[in-house]
Protein backbone atom coordinates (compact mmCIF):
# COMPACT_ATOMS: atom_id res chain seq x y z
CA UNK A 1 0.00 0.00 0.00
CA UNK A 2 1.31 3.37 -1.04
CA UNK A 3 0.05 6.46 0.83
CA UNK A 4 -1.01 9.70 -0.92
CA UNK A 5 2.28 11.32 -0.11
CA UNK A 6 4.33 8.21 -0.89
CA UNK A 7 4.98 7.21 2.71
CA UNK A 8 4.97 3.65 4.03
CA UNK A 9 2.11 2.82 6.46
CA UNK A 10 4.32 3.10 9.52
CA UNK A 11 6.33 6.07 8.33
CA UNK A 12 5.88 9.48 9.87
CA UNK A 13 6.13 12.70 7.90
CA UNK A 14 9.42 14.64 7.88
CA UNK A 15 9.83 15.88 11.44
CA UNK A 16 11.49 19.06 12.61
CA UNK A 17 12.03 19.77 16.31
CA UNK A 18 13.64 22.89 17.76
CA UNK A 19 13.80 24.34 21.24
CA UNK A 20 14.25 27.94 22.38
CA UNK A 21 12.24 29.50 19.57
CA UNK A 22 10.48 32.04 21.81
CA UNK A 23 13.08 34.08 23.70
CA UNK A 24 10.65 35.64 26.19
CA UNK A 25 9.37 32.29 27.40
CA UNK A 26 10.96 30.20 30.14
CA UNK A 27 10.94 27.33 27.68
CA UNK A 28 9.74 26.90 24.12
CA UNK A 29 9.80 24.54 21.17
CA UNK A 30 8.67 24.16 17.59
CA UNK A 31 7.56 20.80 16.22
CA UNK A 32 6.71 20.19 12.59
CA UNK A 33 5.33 17.05 10.93
CA UNK A 34 5.19 17.83 7.19
CA UNK A 35 2.82 20.74 6.80
CA UNK A 36 1.63 20.60 10.40
CA UNK A 37 3.54 22.92 12.68
CA UNK A 38 3.05 23.96 16.29
CA UNK A 39 4.99 26.27 18.58
CA UNK A 40 4.74 25.89 22.34
CA UNK A 41 5.90 28.35 24.98
CA UNK A 42 5.99 27.83 28.73
CA UNK A 43 5.85 30.63 31.32
CA UNK A 44 6.42 29.55 34.90
CA UNK A 45 6.40 28.22 37.50
CA UNK A 46 5.56 31.69 38.79
CA UNK A 47 3.34 33.02 41.55
CA UNK A 48 -0.27 32.93 40.54
CA UNK A 49 -2.26 36.19 40.60
CA UNK A 50 -4.82 37.03 41.85
CA UNK A 51 -4.10 35.12 45.04
CA UNK A 52 -7.60 33.74 45.54
CA UNK A 53 -7.03 31.51 42.52
CA UNK A 54 -3.97 29.89 44.06
CA UNK A 55 -3.99 26.25 45.10
CA UNK A 56 -2.09 25.71 48.34
CA UNK A 57 -1.24 22.14 47.43
CA UNK A 58 -0.02 22.35 43.89
CA UNK A 59 0.76 24.51 40.93
CA UNK A 60 -2.07 25.19 38.51
CA UNK A 61 -1.30 24.12 34.97
CA UNK A 62 -3.03 26.14 32.28
CA UNK A 63 -2.95 25.03 28.66
CA UNK A 64 -4.16 27.00 25.70
CA UNK A 65 -4.29 25.62 22.18
CA UNK A 66 -4.84 28.18 19.46
CA UNK A 67 -4.77 28.04 15.70
CA UNK A 68 -3.33 30.95 13.77
CA UNK A 69 -6.01 32.33 11.42
CA UNK A 70 -3.82 31.50 8.42
CA UNK A 71 -2.99 27.94 9.49
CA UNK A 72 -5.91 26.37 7.63
CA UNK A 73 -7.01 26.35 4.01
CA UNK A 74 -10.13 28.31 4.87
CA UNK A 75 -9.22 31.11 7.25
CA UNK A 76 -9.73 30.08 10.85
CA UNK A 77 -11.74 32.78 12.67
CA UNK A 78 -9.64 34.13 15.57
CA UNK A 79 -10.70 33.42 19.15
CA UNK A 80 -11.54 30.22 20.98
CA UNK A 81 -13.92 27.72 19.37
CA UNK A 82 -15.67 24.73 20.91
CA UNK A 83 -13.07 22.54 19.21
CA UNK A 84 -10.10 24.52 20.52
CA UNK A 85 -11.54 24.60 24.04
CA UNK A 86 -11.91 20.82 24.06
CA UNK A 87 -8.41 20.33 22.65
CA UNK A 88 -6.92 22.69 25.24
CA UNK A 89 -8.52 20.50 27.91
CA UNK A 90 -7.24 17.17 26.58
CA UNK A 91 -3.76 18.60 26.00
CA UNK A 92 -3.65 19.76 29.60
CA UNK A 93 -4.66 16.24 30.70
CA UNK A 94 -2.00 14.77 28.40
CA UNK A 95 0.76 16.86 29.92
CA UNK A 96 -0.16 17.12 33.57
CA UNK A 97 0.73 13.46 34.33
CA UNK A 98 4.36 14.26 33.45
CA UNK A 99 4.69 17.09 35.95
CA UNK A 100 5.30 17.31 39.70
CA UNK A 101 2.78 20.08 40.28
CA UNK A 102 2.73 19.38 44.02
CA UNK A 103 6.29 20.74 44.13
CA UNK A 104 5.04 24.23 43.30
CA UNK A 105 2.16 25.19 45.57
CA UNK A 106 0.53 28.55 44.81
CA UNK A 107 2.28 28.77 41.46
CA UNK A 108 1.02 28.64 37.91
CA UNK A 109 2.59 27.06 34.87
CA UNK A 110 1.18 28.42 31.63
CA UNK A 111 1.56 26.52 28.39
CA UNK A 112 0.61 28.29 25.17
CA UNK A 113 0.42 26.34 21.95
CA UNK A 114 0.11 28.06 18.60
CA UNK A 115 -0.63 26.02 15.52
CA UNK A 116 0.98 27.85 12.64
CA UNK A 117 0.25 25.18 10.01
CA UNK A 118 -2.60 22.69 10.19
CA UNK A 119 -2.56 19.58 8.05
CA UNK A 120 -3.93 17.04 10.58
CA UNK A 121 -2.27 16.02 13.83
CA UNK A 122 -2.16 19.49 15.33
CA UNK A 123 -3.00 18.39 18.86
CA UNK A 124 -0.30 15.73 18.86
CA UNK A 125 2.25 18.14 17.36
CA UNK A 126 1.21 20.57 20.09
CA UNK A 127 1.76 17.97 22.82
CA UNK A 128 5.20 17.07 21.50
CA UNK A 129 6.09 20.77 21.42
CA UNK A 130 4.65 21.45 24.87
CA UNK A 131 6.57 18.54 26.35
CA UNK A 132 9.83 19.83 24.84
CA UNK A 133 9.06 23.38 25.99
CA UNK A 134 8.50 22.22 29.57
CA UNK A 135 11.83 20.40 29.53
CA UNK A 136 13.46 23.43 27.92
CA UNK A 137 12.09 25.52 30.80
CA UNK A 138 13.96 23.24 33.20
CA UNK A 139 10.79 22.10 34.92
CA UNK A 140 11.38 18.69 36.54
CA UNK A 141 9.37 16.00 34.73
CA UNK A 142 8.46 12.40 35.41
CA UNK A 143 8.88 11.71 31.74
CA UNK A 144 8.63 13.35 28.36
CA UNK A 145 5.30 13.03 26.60
CA UNK A 146 5.29 11.94 22.96
CA UNK A 147 2.22 11.96 20.78
CA UNK A 148 1.01 10.83 17.36
CA UNK A 149 -2.24 9.94 15.62
CA UNK A 150 -2.85 6.65 13.82
CA UNK A 151 -5.67 5.05 11.85
CA UNK A 152 -6.62 2.40 9.32
CA UNK A 153 -6.86 2.98 5.60
CA UNK A 154 -7.58 0.34 2.94
CA UNK A 155 -7.03 -2.49 5.38
CA UNK A 156 -3.73 -1.24 6.72
CA UNK A 157 -2.81 0.49 9.96
CA UNK A 158 -1.25 3.84 9.17
CA UNK A 159 0.62 6.29 11.36
CA UNK A 160 0.66 10.10 11.37
CA UNK A 161 -2.36 10.80 9.17
CA UNK A 162 -2.18 13.90 7.00
CA UNK A 163 -5.14 16.08 6.05
CA UNK A 164 -6.16 14.01 3.02
CA UNK A 165 -5.89 10.76 4.94
CA UNK A 166 -7.92 12.11 7.84
CA UNK A 167 -10.92 12.25 5.50
CA UNK A 168 -10.72 8.57 4.48
CA UNK A 169 -9.39 6.79 7.55
CA UNK A 170 -11.74 4.34 9.28
CA UNK A 171 -10.64 5.80 12.58
CA UNK A 172 -8.58 8.75 13.76
CA UNK A 173 -6.87 7.90 17.03
CA UNK A 174 -4.60 10.53 18.55
CA UNK A 175 -2.54 9.21 21.43
CA UNK A 176 0.01 10.62 23.87
CA UNK A 177 2.38 8.37 25.76
CA UNK A 178 5.00 8.62 28.50
CA UNK A 179 7.48 5.96 27.33
CA UNK A 180 9.45 5.54 30.55
CA UNK A 181 6.29 5.47 32.68
CA UNK A 182 4.54 3.27 30.14
CA UNK A 183 1.34 5.28 30.38
CA UNK A 184 -1.13 6.68 27.92
CA UNK A 185 -2.03 10.29 28.73
CA UNK A 186 -4.16 11.18 25.73
CA UNK A 187 -6.49 8.87 23.90
CA UNK A 188 -9.34 9.84 21.64
CA UNK A 189 -11.03 8.16 18.74
CA UNK A 190 -13.36 9.15 15.98
CA UNK A 191 -14.32 6.28 13.73
CA UNK A 192 -15.87 2.86 13.65
CA UNK A 193 -13.77 -0.24 14.10
CA UNK A 194 -13.78 -3.58 15.96
CA UNK A 195 -11.95 -3.40 19.26
CA UNK A 196 -9.11 -5.58 17.96
CA UNK A 197 -8.32 -3.01 15.31
CA UNK A 198 -8.38 -0.27 17.90
CA UNK A 199 -5.96 -2.22 20.08
CA UNK A 200 -3.59 -2.71 17.14
CA UNK A 201 -3.70 0.94 16.18
CA UNK A 202 -2.89 1.91 19.75
CA UNK A 203 0.12 -0.42 19.68
CA UNK A 204 1.35 1.17 16.47
CA UNK A 205 0.92 4.65 17.95
CA UNK A 206 2.81 3.66 21.11
CA UNK A 207 5.67 2.27 19.06
CA UNK A 208 5.91 5.49 17.12
CA UNK A 209 5.80 7.56 20.32
CA UNK A 210 8.88 5.69 21.45
CA UNK A 211 10.71 6.84 18.32
CA UNK A 212 9.56 10.41 18.76
CA UNK A 213 10.73 10.21 22.35
CA UNK A 214 14.27 9.49 21.15
CA UNK A 215 14.09 12.46 18.81
CA UNK A 216 12.86 14.71 21.61
CA UNK A 217 15.66 13.56 23.92
CA UNK A 218 18.22 14.19 21.18
CA UNK A 219 17.03 17.74 20.61
CA UNK A 220 17.21 18.47 24.33
CA UNK A 221 20.62 16.89 24.66
CA UNK A 222 21.96 19.02 21.81
CA UNK A 223 20.60 22.11 23.46
CA UNK A 224 22.18 21.21 26.81
CA UNK A 225 25.49 20.38 25.19
CA UNK A 226 25.47 23.71 23.36
CA UNK A 227 24.63 25.55 26.56
CA UNK A 228 27.41 23.76 28.36
CA UNK A 229 29.83 24.91 25.69
CA UNK A 230 28.72 28.55 25.75
Amino acid at each position, binding site marked *: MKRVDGRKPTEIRPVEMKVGVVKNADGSALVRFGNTEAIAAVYGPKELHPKHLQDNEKAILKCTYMMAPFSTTERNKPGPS*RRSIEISKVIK*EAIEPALFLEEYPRASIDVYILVTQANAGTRTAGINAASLALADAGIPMRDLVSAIAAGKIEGEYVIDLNGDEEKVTLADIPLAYMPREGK*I*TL*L*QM*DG*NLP*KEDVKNIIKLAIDTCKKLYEMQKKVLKEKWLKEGVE
Partner: protein
Amino acid sequence: MNIQNRYMMDLINKGTRLDNRGLDEYRKITIKSGVIAQAEGSSMVSIGDTKVLVGIKMDVGEPFPDTPNEGILIVNAELYPMASSSFELGPPDENSIELARIVDRGIREGKAIDMEKLCIEEGEKVWIIFVDIQPINHDGNLIDASAMAAISALLNTKMPKYEDGSVIYEEKKKKLPVKDIIAMTTFINIGDKVLVDPTIEEENIMDSRVSIATSQNGNICAIQKGGMHGIKPGTIEKIFDKAVERGEEIRKIIKSNV
Protein backbone atom coordinates in the same frame (compact mmCIF):
# COMPACT_ATOMS: atom_id res chain seq x y z
CA MET B 1 -6.54 12.85 51.51
CA ASN B 2 -9.46 13.13 53.89
CA ILE B 3 -11.02 10.28 55.86
CA GLN B 4 -13.97 9.63 53.56
CA ASN B 5 -11.68 9.38 50.55
CA ARG B 6 -9.35 7.02 52.37
CA TYR B 7 -12.29 4.86 53.37
CA MET B 8 -13.58 4.82 49.78
CA MET B 9 -10.12 3.75 48.60
CA ASP B 10 -10.01 0.93 51.11
CA LEU B 11 -13.40 -0.33 49.98
CA ILE B 12 -12.43 -0.10 46.31
CA ASN B 13 -9.26 -2.05 46.97
CA LYS B 14 -11.47 -4.73 48.53
CA GLY B 15 -13.64 -4.69 45.40
CA THR B 16 -16.64 -2.86 46.74
CA ARG B 17 -17.94 0.71 47.04
CA LEU B 18 -19.54 3.20 49.44
CA ASP B 19 -22.99 2.33 48.11
CA ASN B 20 -22.27 -1.41 48.31
CA ARG B 21 -22.00 -1.86 44.56
CA GLY B 22 -19.45 -4.09 42.91
CA LEU B 23 -16.83 -2.29 40.81
CA ASP B 24 -18.52 -3.53 37.64
CA GLU B 25 -22.02 -2.63 38.71
CA TYR B 26 -24.19 0.23 37.51
CA ARG B 27 -26.58 2.10 39.77
CA LYS B 28 -30.29 1.80 39.06
CA ILE B 29 -31.13 3.15 35.61
CA THR B 30 -34.55 4.54 34.70
CA ILE B 31 -35.60 6.07 31.41
CA LYS B 32 -38.75 8.15 30.87
CA SER B 33 -39.31 9.32 27.32
CA GLY B 34 -41.75 11.80 25.82
CA VAL B 35 -41.72 14.06 28.86
CA ILE B 36 -41.57 17.44 27.09
CA ALA B 37 -44.66 18.52 25.15
CA GLN B 38 -42.82 21.17 23.13
CA ALA B 39 -39.93 18.94 22.01
CA GLU B 40 -39.89 16.64 18.98
CA GLY B 41 -38.38 14.01 21.27
CA SER B 42 -37.30 13.90 24.88
CA SER B 43 -36.05 11.62 27.59
CA MET B 44 -35.22 11.88 31.25
CA VAL B 45 -32.62 9.37 32.39
CA SER B 46 -31.69 8.66 35.98
CA ILE B 47 -28.61 6.70 36.97
CA GLY B 48 -28.80 6.64 40.73
CA ASP B 49 -29.16 10.28 41.79
CA THR B 50 -27.79 11.57 38.50
CA LYS B 51 -30.62 12.89 36.35
CA VAL B 52 -30.28 14.19 32.82
CA LEU B 53 -33.03 15.58 30.62
CA VAL B 54 -32.48 15.63 26.87
CA GLY B 55 -34.80 17.35 24.43
CA ILE B 56 -34.68 17.12 20.65
CA LYS B 57 -35.71 20.09 18.52
CA MET B 58 -35.73 20.09 14.74
CA ASP B 59 -35.56 22.87 12.21
CA VAL B 60 -34.75 23.27 8.53
CA GLY B 61 -31.65 25.02 7.21
CA GLU B 62 -28.86 24.96 4.68
CA PRO B 63 -26.56 21.91 4.64
CA PHE B 64 -22.81 22.21 5.12
CA PRO B 65 -21.08 22.64 1.73
CA ASP B 66 -19.13 19.36 2.08
CA THR B 67 -22.24 17.28 2.91
CA PRO B 68 -24.92 18.80 0.67
CA ASN B 69 -27.28 15.84 0.98
CA GLU B 70 -27.06 15.24 4.72
CA GLY B 71 -28.90 16.61 7.71
CA ILE B 72 -27.06 18.50 10.44
CA LEU B 73 -26.54 17.29 14.00
CA ILE B 74 -25.90 19.84 16.76
CA VAL B 75 -25.28 18.61 20.29
CA ASN B 76 -25.20 21.10 23.13
CA ALA B 77 -24.92 20.71 26.90
CA GLU B 78 -25.93 23.30 29.47
CA LEU B 79 -24.27 22.77 32.85
CA TYR B 80 -26.74 25.01 34.67
CA PRO B 81 -25.80 25.47 38.37
CA MET B 82 -29.26 24.24 39.37
CA ALA B 83 -27.89 20.72 38.97
CA SER B 84 -24.67 21.07 40.95
CA SER B 85 -22.77 23.66 42.93
CA SER B 86 -19.75 22.76 40.80
CA PHE B 87 -21.40 24.27 37.72
CA GLU B 88 -21.17 27.97 36.97
CA LEU B 89 -23.31 30.48 35.13
CA GLY B 90 -21.88 31.79 31.88
CA PRO B 91 -21.03 30.61 28.40
CA PRO B 92 -20.27 26.88 27.97
CA ASP B 93 -17.00 25.97 29.69
CA GLU B 94 -14.58 23.17 28.83
CA ASN B 95 -16.59 20.58 30.77
CA SER B 96 -19.87 21.33 29.06
CA ILE B 97 -18.20 21.49 25.66
CA GLU B 98 -16.38 18.20 26.23
CA LEU B 99 -19.59 16.50 27.38
CA ALA B 100 -21.49 17.69 24.30
CA ARG B 101 -18.68 16.72 21.95
CA ILE B 102 -18.29 13.20 23.39
CA VAL B 103 -22.01 12.54 22.98
CA ASP B 104 -21.91 14.13 19.53
CA ARG B 105 -19.03 11.90 18.41
CA GLY B 106 -20.74 8.76 19.66
CA ILE B 107 -23.89 9.53 17.67
CA ARG B 108 -22.05 10.82 14.62
CA GLU B 109 -19.30 8.21 14.31
CA GLY B 110 -21.66 5.39 15.25
CA LYS B 111 -23.93 6.58 12.44
CA ALA B 112 -26.89 6.42 14.80
CA ILE B 113 -28.98 8.64 12.51
CA ASP B 114 -29.48 8.14 8.80
CA MET B 115 -28.38 11.65 7.89
CA GLU B 116 -29.10 11.27 4.19
CA LYS B 117 -32.77 10.71 4.93
CA LEU B 118 -32.77 14.19 6.49
CA CYS B 119 -32.03 15.88 3.18
CA ILE B 120 -35.04 17.80 1.85
CA GLU B 121 -33.42 19.41 -1.19
CA GLU B 122 -29.79 18.70 -1.98
CA GLY B 123 -27.49 21.61 -1.24
CA GLU B 124 -30.44 23.77 -0.22
CA LYS B 125 -32.55 22.47 2.63
CA VAL B 126 -31.90 19.79 5.19
CA TRP B 127 -33.19 18.99 8.65
CA ILE B 128 -31.15 20.21 11.60
CA ILE B 129 -31.36 18.10 14.74
CA PHE B 130 -30.64 19.88 17.99
CA VAL B 131 -29.80 17.55 20.86
CA ASP B 132 -29.86 19.64 24.04
CA ILE B 133 -28.46 18.00 27.16
CA GLN B 134 -29.74 19.48 30.41
CA PRO B 135 -28.47 17.83 33.60
CA ILE B 136 -31.02 18.15 36.40
CA ASN B 137 -28.90 16.64 39.16
CA HIS B 138 -25.22 15.72 38.89
CA ASP B 139 -24.09 12.79 41.00
CA GLY B 140 -21.38 11.44 38.72
CA ASN B 141 -21.23 9.74 35.33
CA LEU B 142 -22.87 12.55 33.42
CA ILE B 143 -21.41 11.24 30.19
CA ASP B 144 -23.24 7.91 30.21
CA ALA B 145 -26.48 9.43 31.46
CA SER B 146 -26.34 12.14 28.80
CA ALA B 147 -25.60 9.71 25.99
CA MET B 148 -28.36 7.36 27.12
CA ALA B 149 -30.85 10.23 27.35
CA ALA B 150 -29.76 11.52 23.95
CA ILE B 151 -30.22 8.15 22.22
CA SER B 152 -33.51 7.55 24.00
CA ALA B 153 -34.75 10.99 23.02
CA LEU B 154 -33.74 10.44 19.40
CA LEU B 155 -35.61 7.14 19.41
CA ASN B 156 -38.60 9.05 20.82
CA THR B 157 -38.45 11.79 18.15
CA LYS B 158 -41.23 12.44 15.68
CA MET B 159 -40.36 14.77 12.84
CA PRO B 160 -42.55 17.82 12.25
CA LYS B 161 -44.04 18.41 8.82
CA TYR B 162 -42.27 20.65 6.35
CA GLU B 163 -44.54 22.39 3.90
CA ASP B 164 -44.27 25.45 1.65
CA GLY B 165 -41.01 26.51 3.20
CA SER B 166 -42.04 26.34 6.81
CA VAL B 167 -41.84 23.81 9.62
CA ILE B 168 -45.25 22.88 11.01
CA TYR B 169 -44.48 21.85 14.57
CA GLU B 170 -48.10 21.01 15.31
CA GLU B 171 -48.09 18.06 12.90
CA LYS B 172 -45.63 15.34 13.80
CA LYS B 173 -45.84 11.92 12.21
CA LYS B 174 -42.74 10.29 10.82
CA LYS B 175 -40.21 8.85 13.22
CA LEU B 176 -36.66 10.11 13.05
CA PRO B 177 -34.60 7.60 11.02
CA VAL B 178 -32.45 6.14 13.83
CA LYS B 179 -30.20 3.40 12.44
CA ASP B 180 -28.08 2.35 15.38
CA ILE B 181 -28.40 2.44 19.14
CA ILE B 182 -25.12 3.71 20.48
CA ALA B 183 -24.12 2.78 24.01
CA MET B 184 -21.69 4.91 25.97
CA THR B 185 -19.82 3.37 28.89
CA THR B 186 -17.49 5.32 31.10
CA PHE B 187 -14.83 3.74 33.31
CA ILE B 188 -12.62 5.36 35.86
CA ASN B 189 -9.47 3.92 37.26
CA ILE B 190 -8.26 4.48 40.80
CA GLY B 191 -4.89 2.91 41.38
CA ASP B 192 -5.09 -0.43 39.56
CA LYS B 193 -8.86 -0.76 39.97
CA VAL B 194 -11.37 -0.07 37.24
CA LEU B 195 -14.89 1.07 38.14
CA VAL B 196 -17.97 1.61 36.03
CA ASP B 197 -20.59 4.28 36.62
CA PRO B 198 -18.71 6.46 39.12
CA THR B 199 -20.49 8.66 41.64
CA ILE B 200 -19.34 12.24 42.03
CA GLU B 201 -17.29 11.25 45.11
CA GLU B 202 -15.51 8.56 43.09
CA GLU B 203 -14.87 10.95 40.21
CA ASN B 204 -13.24 13.35 42.66
CA ILE B 205 -10.55 10.80 43.52
CA MET B 206 -10.16 9.11 40.14
CA ASP B 207 -6.82 8.86 38.37
CA SER B 208 -8.26 8.77 34.90
CA ARG B 209 -11.50 8.30 33.02
CA VAL B 210 -12.18 6.51 29.75
CA SER B 211 -15.48 6.81 27.87
CA ILE B 212 -16.20 4.43 25.02
CA ALA B 213 -19.10 4.47 22.59
CA THR B 214 -19.99 1.21 20.92
CA SER B 215 -22.45 0.44 18.17
CA GLN B 216 -24.82 -2.51 17.80
CA ASN B 217 -22.28 -4.66 15.97
CA GLY B 218 -19.85 -4.29 18.87
CA ASN B 219 -17.57 -1.84 17.09
CA ILE B 220 -15.97 1.00 18.99
CA CYS B 221 -16.97 4.34 17.49
CA ALA B 222 -15.64 6.95 19.90
CA ILE B 223 -13.16 7.12 22.76
CA GLN B 224 -12.28 9.93 25.13
CA LYS B 225 -9.73 9.64 27.88
CA GLY B 226 -9.91 12.24 30.64
CA GLY B 227 -8.40 12.90 34.03
CA MET B 228 -5.05 14.04 35.34
CA HIS B 229 -3.18 10.73 35.32
CA GLY B 230 -1.91 8.36 32.68
CA ILE B 231 -3.30 4.88 32.16
CA LYS B 232 -1.54 1.65 31.19
CA PRO B 233 -2.15 0.16 27.73
CA GLY B 234 -3.12 -3.14 29.35
CA THR B 235 -5.82 -1.45 31.41
CA ILE B 236 -7.15 0.26 28.31
CA GLU B 237 -7.42 -3.11 26.55
CA LYS B 238 -9.39 -4.58 29.44
CA ILE B 239 -11.67 -1.54 29.40
CA PHE B 240 -12.38 -2.08 25.71
CA ASP B 241 -13.54 -5.62 26.39
CA LYS B 242 -15.77 -4.47 29.23
CA ALA B 243 -17.14 -1.58 27.16
CA VAL B 244 -18.40 -3.97 24.51
CA GLU B 245 -20.05 -6.19 27.12
CA ARG B 246 -21.56 -3.36 29.10
CA GLY B 247 -22.70 -1.68 25.91
CA GLU B 248 -24.87 -4.69 25.14
CA GLU B 249 -26.61 -4.37 28.50
CA ILE B 250 -27.17 -0.65 28.13
CA ARG B 251 -28.61 -1.15 24.69
CA LYS B 252 -31.07 -3.64 26.16
CA ILE B 253 -32.21 -1.13 28.77
CA ILE B 254 -32.61 1.56 26.13
CA LYS B 255 -34.58 -0.75 23.84
CA SER B 256 -36.87 -1.93 26.60
CA ASN B 257 -37.87 1.68 27.18
CA VAL B 258 -38.72 2.64 23.61
